């Protein structure tokens, strides 16, 4: 997924002279083709994220479209004030391509896990937050980033994730997608948890539970209309995210439900990382397993909610 995102920066730069790339001490050879063909628009800066954000804001105020890439947690937590003031208050066209959103860097420990990135950025006016489910969706998203107004945070997953999205309907930033209709339960996902929801829905259908799925690649601005329509009928709604349950997709959907005036019998649960720093290493999958962000957990949660 990261490769596709960076390849797309190259493609966009080839066709639009406003596009720049700024990395923060990335791996040797990153975007070598970009560097050799458009050296004046390729910047490999040091380990100074706060400056990278401010510098990008200065360039964007002059009409450029800088695409930045570094590790998600350093892109967000480390320079939150620069994102808030330099990017969001000025409302500039800077694209934050954040590697390792979620628990991708599980073996590297809590310093490298971005499990609250969506929550903290969601509080910022003018910020757009997108978490694609697979590399194909990333490609479609990147095409949309060129002429979109304001800062965009793109959460990049591990890579080699199974392709689960479709070219139709066309990808639009700000749109949620009904991946599957269902009348008993609704699963709401963002990023790579879509695949887990699809597996869970298949399992639930086998047991006679009609299960719908809404994929929400854009968490902000949230496609409230699509969510309200999809949530109207099912008795149970479950959100699944590779993120703390505080402030991310689950919270955003909970806010919609709370204000919608649905019947009190409608059940809702958030599946995600609990309010604690992950205390194990291992792999992305093993940490997801530890925190029950699995299709098995989705099935049992839905079953429990519908029974209760």
């Amino acid at each position: 997924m990261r490769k596709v995102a960076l390849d797309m920066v190259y493609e966009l730069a080839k066709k639009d002279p406003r596009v720049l790339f700024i990395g923060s001490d990335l791996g040797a050879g990153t975007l070598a083709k970009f560097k050799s063909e458009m050296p004046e628009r390729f910047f490999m800066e040091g380990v100074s994220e706060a400056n990278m954000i401010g510098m990008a804001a200065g360039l964007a105020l002059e009409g450029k479209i800088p695409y930045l890439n570094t590790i998600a947690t350093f892109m967000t937590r480390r320079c939150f004030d620069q994102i808030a003031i330099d990017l969001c208050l000025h409302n500039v066209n800077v694209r934050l391509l954040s590697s390792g959103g979620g628990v991708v860097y599980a073996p590297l420990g809590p310093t490298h896990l971005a499990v609250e990135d969506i929550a903290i950025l969601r509080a910022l006016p003018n910020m757009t937050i997108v978490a694609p489910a697979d590399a194909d969706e990333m490609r479609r998203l990147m095409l949309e980033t060129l002429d979109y107004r304001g800062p965009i945070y793109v959460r990049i997953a591990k890579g080699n994730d199974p392709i689960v999205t479709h070219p139709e309907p066309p990808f639009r930033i700000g749109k949620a997608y009904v991946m599957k209709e269902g009348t008993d339960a609704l699963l709401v996902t963002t990023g790579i948890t879509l695949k887990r929801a699809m597996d869970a829905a298949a399992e639930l259908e086998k047991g006679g539970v009609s299960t719908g799925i809404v994929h929400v690649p854009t968490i902000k601005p949230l496609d409230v209309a699509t969510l309200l329509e999809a949530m109207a009928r099912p008795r149970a709604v479950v959100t699944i995210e590779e993120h703390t349950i505080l402030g991310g997709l689950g919270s955003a959907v909970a806010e919609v439900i709370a204000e919608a005036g649905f019947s009190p019998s409608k059940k809702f649960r958030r599946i995600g990382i609990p309010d604690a720093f992950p205390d194990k290493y291992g792999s992305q999958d093993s940490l997801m397993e530890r925190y029950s962000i699995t299709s098995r957990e989705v099935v049992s949660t839905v079953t429990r909610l519908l029974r209760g």
Partner: protein
Amino acid sequence: MEPSSAPSDPSSPAARALRTRLDARSKDLRRKILTMVEAGRRGHIPSALSPMEILRVLYDEVLRLDPRNPLWKDRDRCILSKGHGCLALYVLLAEKGFFPAEELLKYCKSDGILGGHPERGKVPGVEASTGSLGHGLSIGVGMAINARLEKADYRTFVILGDGEQNEGSVWEAAMVASKHRLNRLTVISDYNKRMTYDSTYVVQDLEPLAAKWSSFGFEVREVDGHDLEALRAAFRALPFHPEKPSQIICHTVKGKGIPVLEADPAWHHKPKISDADLLMLRDGLEAS
């Protein structure tokens, strides 16, 4: 540690800044600041008086600007990174015609555009929204890089406070400015040596400040930041080096021109300014 140009040396820029007398225009600009303070009844007044002559020379004589077209692409970019010094900037922008002078009387009011920190988009002529310290230089670096990409000949000026230079992001930006050899970028330090709580020597010493900037790849000059001729000469000499960004360390006096502000650190930021306060400030300005 004493500053490199210690006030104990009477010929140092720091010592001269204490003695430099203000001319009629500098006094008049300060009168206008007090008019704004009377309207808003608050403000970072001393922090606006230390860079007053720096901004005056920049806006009167140095910057290439068109007030009728504030975003003219060939304009020089000037960022007041120490945004709390904005009273001085507002007075000059109004004089130049970026917005009507009546706006000054709505300082910090709900129907005005001039807040306690300057905002781009709200205030014509303001290049960046500042107030959170340590942001302006990075933005200026981006603007200076853009000039190089566009082969444009505009220059970029960034005014930093001294307390602001406690922020690590300032030094991140300094390294990057020097790496990219941004010779059309000029950083101006408003070195008034007084922070909110106490002096820079007590709270967080910056010395040796000139050596710091020099070691970060800047070509450095030091001047008395209230001496108009010294400022003009420094600006005329830009760039100080053909392949380096420039740094003008301006030795200034916090509250310059109003004795009570020069003497009392409690005035750093004052809300609820009374009629009696205003009288004292005005009397002090006229008597000095």
